[in-house]
């Protein structure tokens, strides 16, 4: 728009001041982007958060307690259940344990419940057919340097084999890819055949850690949850069934109120930022009162003077925010290499950008408001004579 060069000229009036202010804004939004990514990563720690049409059934007492295999057919028979599968946490350790990843034993049909994980049909079949077969996510395979056909040994931390050996060896038969970048954390998993696990394990045969259920209709979630739990009511293996999202959220909630921590830090950061940019804007406008008066003599309306100053503040913040968010993306990638596989940071995506820029606009309006009003309200005669 035609007034842009005016706003730009105003910012360039004191280059050093503008540069330093933009740098401060930049660091604030760099933090914002980073922390927001970390927060999203924690929310995805349990796995996916897409399946509103999937339920999880675990033991009501504690999800470290096992459930009997007999529940499988009984759950299948519940109306509203499209498919049932099961899984058991294995907790294996790879080599010296420095690169940790979750490993679980799953039923042959497990991947049918996760169509959003893309794996060639041939590999799915190989998993079903290979007793010692294992499937991993693309991210994990890349990080470990694994290829299809590799033999991968894991040390058991919970489940030794019947002979007393702690070493379980698997054949990598499948690698899947998750297209949604926010759920790419799911590629960090190691899945293998439950049958192999159940046969060879020292204790706990015939029990599973959890059931995964696919609903025919997501809107019937509550009814199906209750029906499934009713199956085991008053037995020695009472269950608790909830949506995958609720399950993951509860798990993350136990770790920390990440939202609170991130929110508090960003609160402190943005408070400081408002003070800093507010000061800059106040200074800038104070210096330019005579110029704003001249604009008014030329015939610029009060509203346009107000808008010019506000736009200056918003532009200042928008520039700093954009660079900061961009750097946050780079920083997130750098941090990822340091923390390894334990936590997968999603890239700084469209949502973060939108949130960040909206925040920049709001802060710009807040810090620009008083100076803009001052400019709007100046009395031409007084301002020109230097009063």
């Amino acid at each position: 728009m035609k007034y842009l060069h005016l706003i730009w000229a105003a910012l360039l009036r004191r280059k050093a001041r503008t540069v330093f202010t933009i740098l401060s804004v930049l660091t604030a939004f760099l933090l914002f982007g980073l922390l927001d990514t970390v927060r999203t990563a924690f929310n995805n720690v349990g796995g996916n958060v897409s399946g509103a049409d999937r339920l999880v059934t675990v033991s009501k007492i504690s999800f470290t307690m096992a459930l009997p295999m007999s529940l499988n057919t009984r759950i299948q028979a519940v109306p509203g259940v499209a498919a049932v599968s099961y899984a058991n946490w294995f907790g294996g350790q790879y080599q010296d344990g420095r690169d940790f990843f979750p490993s679980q034993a799953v039923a042959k049909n497990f991947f049918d419940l996760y169509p959003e994980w893309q794996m060639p049909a041939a590999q799915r079949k190989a998993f079903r057919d290979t007793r010692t077969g294992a499937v991993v996510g693309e991210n994990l395979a890349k990080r470990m340097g694994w290829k299809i056909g590799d033999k991968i040994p894991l040390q058991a931390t919970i489940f030794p084999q019947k002979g007393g050996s702690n070493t379980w060896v698997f054949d990598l038969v499948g690698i899947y890819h998750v297209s949604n970048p926010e759920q790419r954390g799911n590629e960090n998993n190691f899945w293998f055949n439950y049958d192999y696990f159940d046969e060879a394990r020292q204790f706990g045969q015939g029990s599973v850690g959890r059931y995964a259920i696919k609903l025919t209709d997501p809107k019937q979630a509550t009814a199906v949850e209750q029906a499934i739990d009713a199956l085991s009511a008053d037995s020695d293996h009472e269950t608790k069934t909830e949506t995958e999202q609720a399950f993951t959220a509860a798990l993350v909630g136990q770790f920390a109120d990440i939202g609170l921590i991130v929110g508090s830090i960003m609160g402190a950061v943005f408070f400081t930022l408002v003070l800093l940019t507010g000061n800059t804007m106040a200074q800038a406008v104070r210096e330019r009162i005579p110029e704003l008066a001249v604009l008014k003599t030329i015939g610029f309306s009060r509203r346009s003077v107000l808008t010019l100053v506000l736009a200056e503040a918003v532009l200042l913040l928008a520039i700093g925010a954009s660079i900061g968010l961009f750097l946050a993306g780079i920083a997130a990638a750098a941090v990822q290499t340091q923390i390894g596989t334990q936590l997968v940071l999603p890239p700084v995506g469209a949502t973060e950008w939108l949130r960040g820029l909206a925040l920049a606009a709001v802060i710009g309006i807040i810090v620009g408001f008083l100076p803009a009003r001052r400019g709007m309200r100046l009395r031409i005669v007084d301002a020109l004579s230097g009063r």
Partner: protein
Amino acid sequence: MKRGAASQLRNSAAAVGYFVIPVAIVLFSPWWLLLAIVAGVAALLALTRAGRQMLSVTRIGISTIPQRLGASSVVVVGIAGVVAVLVALLAMAQGFQQTLRETGNDETAIVMRAGSQTELNSVLDHDTAVLVSQASQVMHGPRGQPIASPELVVVASLPKKATGLDANVELRGVGERAWDLRPNVQITVGRKFRPGLRELIAGKDAQRQFAGIEPGSTVKLNEQVWTVVGGFDSGDSHNSELWGDTDIIGSAYRRGSSTSSVTVRLTTPEAFDAFKAALQADKRVQVDVSTTRSYYNAQSDTISTIIRILGTVVGAIMAIGAVFGALNSMYAAVATRTREIATLRAIGFRGTPVVVSVMIETLLLALLGGAIGAGLAWAIFDNYTASTLGSNFSQVVFAFRVTPELLWDGLKWALTIGLVGGLFPALRAARQPVTAGLREL
């Protein structure tokens, strides 16, 4: 022209020499040395002529701060924010680590199945537990029984008071000798549980976190009713646990006679090596042996390291932002005092006193900001209790610990920011051509 450049260089060197290097050194000194240095510098300022020059220039500068309240508050608040966030996060890490470290000592050892790393993953059969408690390095009680407690660690799901949502609480089945093993455990309410019964006692922090486990209440575990008969305080991370009889909990969780670990009291701390060697040489068992100190230290390391890294990264980024804010403010400060500075220099003050005065002013503002930030962190966060998911996949309650070392660290960061943010404006003040400044009059 050349003479001007030379004197500028001299002023810059003076700034660096007189000020930056000493302050940088000071930041790495222990506090008593710092105090001595500050006393020395104060004496220098008060007693030498050059020093008095610097003081008078500084006084002029500081007297104009009320006119520059906005810019000055940017420095103070910016630095306060950095220090507050940094100290808070580091206090979180410190508190978590300390809580867990206090739980272990060198007199007791813990034995788990080889490779399990944490009690929750470990499964020991009854024979192994017996074998461990019969080792010769295990201390015996007054009636000749080995002070060894086979313990079973499981996880129960109870609603948290704060959120109403279910969270994991650690349930520990302890053996009869557990009280000899841990003499620090006090029963604060009610009584101990009776072996053979479905009775529990709740740790102080577990009671605070979870609903429905006050002494006298009942809990339903696996369709069985359990009674909470008392509360205990152990002064360490066991306070986040529920305790009961190993055998009864074992049957409730269908674990038969197997346990997670055996914790023993050693005859002497030095006996640990022999204890470990003996068990690892024994072909009948496959176990990992460590002192409780090193076990609990390891448990806390991962999480506290992550928090420390997070705190340092966040603090560093905020600090950079604060530096730019300080640069802005101090450049503005120098600009508004162009006239005064030029007059001083025209009168005959050399560049150095001006540089020093700007630096002192910045450092004072930084110190104020650091003190406010540290004070805030201490006031709000010291002993603030929080809980997180520990290594046994259950809630561990800990308190933030704002230690004097952390506060001093925070102040050091503040001073460093002030140093960096004030140096260039100070040099600019010294280098301003006198004539340009006087023209402002």
